[in-house]
Structures are given as structure tokens and as C-alpha cells.
């Protein structure tokens, strides 16, 4: 079990504890706990700093709280206690109207994809750009190129229900990265693709990180984690421990 007071200063390649952050963290958790309704806490005493441009894997057994931790970061859920700062802003004091601009800076690959089944692959990927208010002429080519890059160039207008699991996953990843978010979160992003495609997608995440995004990937794929050589944050029974 971890020391509840331990803080993971995860900056650059150094994910070691107690190292002072060189820059202001884009994600900062202080004593954060989270529960669903009246159930016991699924996350306990989480202290975490993610520096800008850092890349981490988040590992842990099923039910350890990986998805819950990501939900707190992408503002889908509120913490039960503690403080969360995103881009230097305390999210617990954020007015509802202040959340959308923050959410637009966060790209998320959901474990269950969460594609919009009534929209084509192209429309799904274009969604974040469209919500940012960009004109179609500005992003049409970018979306097509990204879809081609993830191997869906021949399925631009396919509807998600007609795609295979792997194709859906690649589509979900394309949607998450299309607007070059400052934070990129992924929940088991390689769970439905073959090893070759896993590496290809990992390269996409690394490329996004190289372009400045802070990347946090929740994954069971130990081989991918080892191959990446990136630092690991490990969750056990809702607590963050050294990877």
C-alpha cells in the first residue's frame, strides 16, 4: 500500500516521487477520493502531478480505479474529496460554463469507444473540431489524412455499427487526437487490435506527446508498456503506488 501523503510528480521521463515539478502541472491531484453514490471509495488519497508534455502508463488490475481516475481528469465525474487542478484551475470551483473550454483541451479514447452510431466515421472524427467552431474547409483534409493514417482511409463514410472492434478503436483514437489536445487520455486503447496495430497506435500517441500533449494511457497490455519504455503509474485498490 502507498503512503497516502506520497505525491507522484510525473514530469518528462521522471515519474519518481517527491521530485519537485519543474513546471506547473497540467493535472494536479491533492488527497483526492472518489466514490459512486454511497458505495465505498474507488479512489483514495490520490496525490498526483502530471507535468506538461509527460507520458505515462496507468496500470492496475480490473476494478483498481484506472477508468475512475481518468474520468476525474476528463471532467466526467466530480471527486468526493480533495483538490483537482487542471491547467492550473481548481475544477471544484469551476462554473459549469467554464468546463467546455477545458474539455476541448482533453482528448479521450474511451474503453468502450463511445462512437456516435448515427454519424459516419468522418463525422465522428470531425466532431471535436466542429464543436470548437472550426469551418469544415479548415479541417476536412486533416480528418481524411488522420483516418487514412489509422488505416481507415477506405471507410471514411462507414457507420460505426458496420466497423470491426479494431476499426472502432482506431476511429475512437482518431477522434481523440484530431484537435491536438493538451492532454490525451486513453482507456485500454489497444485492447482490440493486433500487436502490429498496437505499436502503430503507440507511435501515434508518442507523436502526439512529441507535439506537446501530456499523455496518460490506462492499459493492461504489459508488453506494450514494456516496449514503450515510458514511466508507469500503478493503481492498487484505489491507491496510487510506484510503478
Amino acid at each position, binding site marked *: 500500500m502507498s503512503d497516502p501523503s506520497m505525491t507522484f510528480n510525473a514530469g518528462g521521463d521522471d515519474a519518481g516521487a517527491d521530485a519537485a515539478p519543474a513546471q506547473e502541472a497540467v493535472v494536479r491531484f491533492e488527497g483526492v477520493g472518489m466514490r459512486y453514490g454511497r458505495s465505498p471509495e474507488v479512489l483514495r488519497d490520490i496525490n498526483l502531478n502530471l507535468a506538461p508534455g509527460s507520458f505515462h502508463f496507468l496500470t492496475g488490475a480490473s476494478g483498481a480505479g484506472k477508468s475512475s481516475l481518468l474520468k476525474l481528469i*476528463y*471532467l*466526467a*465525474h*466530480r471527486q468526493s474529496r480533495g483538490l483537482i487542478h487542471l491547467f492550473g484551475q481548481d475544477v471544484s470551483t469551476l462554473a*459549469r*460554463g467554464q468546463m*467546455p*473550454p477545458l*474539455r*476541448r483541451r482533453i482528448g*479521450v479514447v474511451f474503453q468502450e469507444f*463511445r462512437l*456516435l452510431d*448515427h*454519424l*459516419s466515421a*468522418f*463525422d465522428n472524427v*470531425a*466532431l*471535436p473540431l*466542429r*464543436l*470548437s467552431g472550426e469551418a*469544415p474547409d479548415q479541417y*476536412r*483534409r486533416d*480528418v*481524411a*489524412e488522420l*483516418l*487514412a*493514417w489509422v*488505416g481507415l*482511409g*477506405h471507410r*471514411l*463514410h462507414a457507420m460505426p455499427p458496420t466497423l470491426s472492434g479494431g476499426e472502432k478503436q482506431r476511429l475512437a483514437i482518431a477522434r481523440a487526437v484530431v484537435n491536438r489536445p493538451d492532454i490525451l487520455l486513453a482507456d485500454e486503447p489497444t485492447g482490440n487490435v493486433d500487436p502490429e496495430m498496437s505499436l502503430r497506435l503507440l507511435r501515434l500517441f508518442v507523436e502526439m506527446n512529441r507535439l506537446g500533449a501530456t499523455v496518460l494511457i490506462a492499459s493492461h497490455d504489459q508488453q506494450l508498456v514494456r516496449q514503450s519504455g515510458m514511466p508507469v503509474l500503478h493503481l492498487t485498490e484505489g491507491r496510487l503506488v510506484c510503478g
Partner: protein
Amino acid sequence: MTAEASDTQSWAAWRPAPLLPLADGRDRALAFVVATLCFLACITVFCLLASGRAAEGWGRELSASATVQIRPKAGETGSDAAARAAEALAGVKGVSEAQALDRAAAEKLLEPWLGKGNIPDDLPIPHLVTVELDPKAPAKLADLNAALTQAGIDGVVDDHSHWLKDVTRAGDIARGLALGAGLLVSAAAAAVVAFATRAGLAARRDVVEILHLSGARDSFIAGLFQTRFALLAARAGAYGAATAMAAAAGLRLIGGDDGFTPVLPLRWTDLLAALPCPLLAAAVAAVSARRTAMAILRAEP
């Protein structure tokens, strides 16, 4: 790999698709309900216009005339007294015409109650004088009474003011009822749209959640539902209004120049009153859908 490697260049012609799923069975049911409400609202407006016109016409007729019942003095026949009264009243300022009714004309007035040819010759019939008043400056009751007194005639003047009051009141009640019915129909339409918006948000929760997490504002998402239901209501309103206009036109054709019935003298121009219905339905639906969606979205974490 570049976009050029894709099997088609169809992305160049891509246009953003609607963010909400296309209409489903629930929307069709809602459209039917809104169309029905719009039909009822239009019929109510037609009735309001026609009944208002009828009441106004009756009021105008009543206020533009008076009836004088003559009681002949001893030694004078009723006809002579009535003729004298007509002469006296014709000279009053504000009277256009005064005419003594002969027995045949008086009997005709009784026909609706007693039937044609059922009036015995010895039945005493009141001697009446009908007075047509100048509609611009009608003579006052006091002036008519004064003229009769001056001519030495015993008569009772009925200026229809009692009936006029009742007709005006009936017209006002009809207008009030139609207005109330119109408001009720509007409220029902708003409630139905609010209910449909709630159902729509619940059914498309996954869409709403992804839009939220992708950075859409509440007002943007509410706007999607507002547009969806406003367009639906506008289409349904057009159907409802068109059906009501067709029904009213049918009644007008059957009824001829006087309208379907003298009680509801409908004119062709009255049908134009249904034209704003789609716009009003869209406005009611837009406001209702937006308020409902915003209330639901604001209650979310």
C-alpha cells in the same frame, strides 16, 4: 499514408451531418399530436372570427333600429295611430325611416312561433312601428318618447338596448372562450414538446454525453433539441393549419355566401388567420424544448 491514398476522394465533398439522430417513431407521434393541436387551434380562431363577426352584425342591426308598440286611444284605429306615430317619429333628428307595420307584416313576425296560416283573424296583434336610426348619429330614446308625447300618441319605445347588451355579452364570452381554448392548446403543445424533449434527451443520453465530453456547451446541445423540435412543430403546424383551412373552406363552400351557418359567418379571408400557425407552433416548441433541455443539462454533474 495520405488522404490521397483513400479509396475515394469523397471527403472533399463532405458536409457535416446532423448531430442528433434522424427522426424516429417518437417524433412521428409527436408530430401527429402537434398537428392535431394546431388544427384545433386554427378551428378555434376561425370560430372566434366568425362568432365575433356575427355578434358585431347583430349588435349593429339592433343598435340601428327601434321598435315602437302603439296603444291606440279610444275612437282611433290601431292602423291610424301607427301611421301617425310613424309620421311623428320620421321627423325626429337621427331617424332615417319610420314605418308602420300593417297586420300582414306583423303576422309574418309571429309565423316562426305560431306557424304560417295559423293566426286567427280575431287574434289581437300589437300595432308596431319600426324605426331605422341614422347609424352615424342615432336618435336617443328620450327624443323618440318626446316626439310621441308631443303628437299625443301612447306608445312604448324599445331601442333594443336590453338585447344589445346580451348580444355584446355573448360575443365577449365567445371571444373569451376562444382565447382560453387557444391558450390551453398552446400550453398543451408546449407540455407535449417538453415531454418529448425529456424523452429525447433520455433516449440520446449517449450522444449528449459525448457532445459534453467533447466540449459542447449546454446552450449548444439545447440548441440542437430546440432546432429539432422547432422544425418538427413547424412542419406539424403546417399540416394542422392546412387541414383546418381545408375543413373551413369545405364548410364555406357548403354554406354559401353567408357562411356555414348564420351563427358562424365565415369569410374566405378568415382562412388566412391560419397562416401564422406553423411559425407560432415552432416558436412554442423552440422555447419549450430549450427551457426543458437547459433545465435537464444544468442538473447534470
